[in-house]
């Protein structure tokens, strides 16, 4: 270690309310001097490194750079940090990292994502690499891509906890004048067994912060885990149960007014004229704004704003999207797919010669599948509160990208980035919708015009009609089987590619010749990431077609997939487990059927079996069996909850999720025509977790969703012989 200098931060410390870095000599590389004013302002608090602080009462706070949207991530990330630190869980608190560049600058990420850890440089080596690199996600403070645990948790939280532990031990060794190796840690205490000395972490916090950051903190092996792998109760449950949890929509400040907004029904149109004669006279109304791309009414109360907004007559400019209907859109997809023929389009993956293999195949299978647009329908509608005044801007919301929100607010308000503060709260559902910035930008524009604080809330109608949708899509397949019913060729062409890039590919299936292509079809609706993103449609496309090939080969869907996965023991184990859980071979009553589907995504391998009752007018999904290998489930209860919620979300889409356009506008507007699964429609769900590789973790939030739809439709086929090639099921007549 080179020479280091004692840094004086008294000025900054006092300015920030007496931050305790004052007087501490921080070693180069440890960013706590810059960060303390942001996160360790309290009395007696000491930041040890970027992600851990300890206060005088021996409370350990884990600072997490992700947002809580119901997925339980605060708890799991804190669990990872606290375990490596040997912290007493009852004394662990959690703090969301502030939306500040200082918190996510590259050096911090680098410091805690040292490549020498026992995790691969690329988290989930798939055909294309990872979904998003750690640096991207952490430096942008994104919560998405089922990334938090496998990325941030595995590489930053654990390292930070282990590093803090080593720093505390080093400080204790120095103070007690013993060798560090003689010390151990337990329940937020440092212990020296030889001399029976023990002391709290807090008593060494200041001295620990003066230690150099360990270059390679030693991480625990699974046998030593105390918190990881345990179904620890989520810390956000009590406040979400008693109603004290604060969501973005709860923002409340003195003098705050409310805005209701309405955008043109056809996305891309402009508001040409606005007649506010009646609205002007209505109670509570303060301002009526034509923002060009939407109309806003600002009033003393939200109800008043909404009532006045409803009386405003608007005309909109013409756009290319005006005449478009859903059927015409699907016809456009079909035409462009026809035009792409056998060779055009962008090749996403290719091996062997599909043309020749298909031509020579003993059995040829062809099919086309379609899915509709889907809205996110978060329980908490889009909202944002903004206050723009002389040289300052404050914004409150719940977003998956706090730092991006701050940037968007700065650009929109024209106020210097340093004078913009973004305040994030809990998200009442994210699913990708809250990775968009439209609500932040709109609220900031309104507040810029009024110059007083305004809370903008979208109505449920706006929320449904102005979403950034999961694209509607069409996918076509040709598959070849040899005379033994073995798959020899797989060719696919589909519309759109958003993310992840490997979603349309099947590298895990042994098919010697395959070619996968996509074409981009222009549509005026905005696309956005929707839980599991492109896997949500490709899971259905791929696993439906695999089932059709199995049927053509005269084989059972489970047996056929076993052949395709031969040589991949980890994959096979997941498939076998799901089949076993479901009692695959046991007969079912008349009119009932079982279907299986297998989709690895976001680093987690999942197979699901659905049991469906087709004796009534509509399909009734009775049971879902989930076998999942996420490498290692940090919080098995949280993981299972994510499987269950993926099934609720995915089944909503499978049974009735459909956004369609007519005359360019979205036809659905609220829960009566965009229904959400009800509790009586929820199947029994059984989840079995396989910890297949503790070094390489997978995600939890999304991977449970892609296999759901095909498992259900394959079960419907098993029960009725009817193959469903278009979702949702509400469009299909089963009479």
């Amino acid at each position, binding site marked *: 270690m080179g020479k280091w200098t004692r840094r004086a931060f008294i000025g900054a410390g006092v300015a920030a309310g007496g931050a305790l870095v004052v007087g501490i000599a921080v070693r180069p590389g440890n960013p706590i001097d810059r960060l303390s004013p942001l996160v360790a302002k309290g009395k007696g608090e000491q930041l040890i490194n970027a992600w851990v602080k300890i206060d005088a009462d021996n409370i350990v706070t884990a600072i997490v750079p992700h947002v809580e949207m119901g997925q339980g991530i605060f708890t799991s990330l804190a669990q990872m940090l606290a375990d490596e630190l040997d912290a007493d869980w009852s004394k662990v608190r959690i703090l969301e990292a502030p939306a500040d560049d200082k918190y996510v600058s590259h050096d911090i990420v680098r410091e805690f994502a040292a490549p020498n850890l026992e995790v691969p440089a690329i988290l989930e080596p798939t055909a294309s690499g990872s979904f998003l690199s750690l640096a991207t996600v952490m430096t942008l403070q994104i919560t998405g891509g089922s990334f938090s645990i496998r990325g941030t948790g595995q590489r930053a939280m654990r390292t930070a906890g282990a590093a803090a532990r080593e720093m505390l031990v080093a400080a204790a060794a120095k103070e007690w004048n013993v060798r560090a190796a003689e010390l151990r840690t337990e329940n937020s205490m440092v212990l020296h067994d030889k001399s029976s000395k023990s002391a709290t972490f807090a008593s060494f916090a200041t001295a620990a912060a003066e230690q150099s950051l360990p270059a390679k903190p030693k991480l625990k092996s699974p046998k030593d885990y105390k918190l990881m792998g345990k179904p620890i109760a989520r810390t956000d449950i009590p406040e979400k149960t008693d109603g004290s949890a604060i969501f973005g929509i709860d923002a409340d400040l003195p003098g705050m007014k409310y805005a209701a907004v309405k955008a043109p029904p056809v996305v891309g149109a402009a508001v040409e004229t606005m007649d506010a004669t009646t609205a002007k006279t209505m109670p509570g109304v303060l301002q009526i704004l034509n923002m060009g791309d939407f109309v806003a009414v600002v009033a003393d109360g939200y109800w008043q704003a909404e009532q006045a907004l409803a009386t405003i007559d608007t005309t909109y400019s013409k756009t290319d999207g005006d005449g478009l209907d859903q059927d015409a859109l699907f016809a456009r997809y079909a035409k462009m797919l026809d035009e792409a023929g056998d060779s055009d389009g962008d090749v*996403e993956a290719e091996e062997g010669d599909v043309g020749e293999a298909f031509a020579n195949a003993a059995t040829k299978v062809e099919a086309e599948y379609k899915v509709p647009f889907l809205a996110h329908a978060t329980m908490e509608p889009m909202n944002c509160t903004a206050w723009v005044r002389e040289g300052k801007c404050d914004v409150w919301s719940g977003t998956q990208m706090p730092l991006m929100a701050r940037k968007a607010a700065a650009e929109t308000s024209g106020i210097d980035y340093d004078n913009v503060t973004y305040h994030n709260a809990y998200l009442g559902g994210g699913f990708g919708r809250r990775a968009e910035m439209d609500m932040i930008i709109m609220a900031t524009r309104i507040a810029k015009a009024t110059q007083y604080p305004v809370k903008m809330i979208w109505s449920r109608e706006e929320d449904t009609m102005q979403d950034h949708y999961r694209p509607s899509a069409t996918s076509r397949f040709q598959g070849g089987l040899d005379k033994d019913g073995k798959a020899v060729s797989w060719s696919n062409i589909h519309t759109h590619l958003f993310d992840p890039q490997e979603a349309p590919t099947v590298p895990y299936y042994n098919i010697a010749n395959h070619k996968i292509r996509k074409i981009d079809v222009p549509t005026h609706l905005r696309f956005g990431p929707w839980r599991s993103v492109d896997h949500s449609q490709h899971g259905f496309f791929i696993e439906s077609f695999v089932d059709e090939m199995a049927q053509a080969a005269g084989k059972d869907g489970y047996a056929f997939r076993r052949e395709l996965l031969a040589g991949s023991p980890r994959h096979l184990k997941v498939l076998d487990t799901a089949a076993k859980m479901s009692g695959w071979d046991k007969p079912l009553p008349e009119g009932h059927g079982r279907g299986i589907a297998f989709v690895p995504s976001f680093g987690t391998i999942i197979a699901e079996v659905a049991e469906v009752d087709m004796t009534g007018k509509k399909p009734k999904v009775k049971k879902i069996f989930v076998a999942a290998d996420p490498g290692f489930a940090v919080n098995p209860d949280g993981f299972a909850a994510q499987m269950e919620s993926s099934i609720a979300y995915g089944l909503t889409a499978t049974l009735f999720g459909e956004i369609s356009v007519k005359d360019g506008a979205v036809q659905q507007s609220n829960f009566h025509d965009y229904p959400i699964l009800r509790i009586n429609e929820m199947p029994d769900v059984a989840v079995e977790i396989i910890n297949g590789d503790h070094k390489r973790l997978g995600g939890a939030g999304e991977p449970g969703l892609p296999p759901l739809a095909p498992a259900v439709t394959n079960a419907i086929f098993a029960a009725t012989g009817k193959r469903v090639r278009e979702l949702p099921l509400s469009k299909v007549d089963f009479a």
Partner: protein
Amino acid sequence: MKAVFRASALVLVITLAACGSDPAPEPTEQIVVREPGADASEASDTTAPEPAGEATASLVAAGKSAFNTCIACHVLEKGGANRIGPNLYGIIGQAAGSADGFKYSDAMASSGITWTKEELDSYLANPAAKVPGTTMMAGAISDAGQREAIIAYIEDASAN
């Protein structure tokens, strides 16, 4: 396996947003009906329905009972006497420290505040922070809704 991929769509979207390619247009039309705090009856249109509807009436009622915490020190009637604190009749719109015959603190007298509803709100939220050195030692109201109600009551009572 040969794989041909383009850059991640999600990352692409993010980068675009970060570049601020989307400038923030100002409103093409801005109708200001009323400034917040201004009397709702000043609304531009004469056809305006009675602004003091049921909601306002109940707010005033709530304010009247909340004002009980003030009456030990303040009266709220035309020509009423000053007590420990000054008469608050007609305070909205008035300059701070202008009740006849009341001996204000220097801090209040020189504060330069004009009592708009907003100013009242922030004073009542934390008198000592708003006017450091004020001699009003009680009466801070932490609940924003209660402050709103009290202010509505002061306004209503002053109109009679």
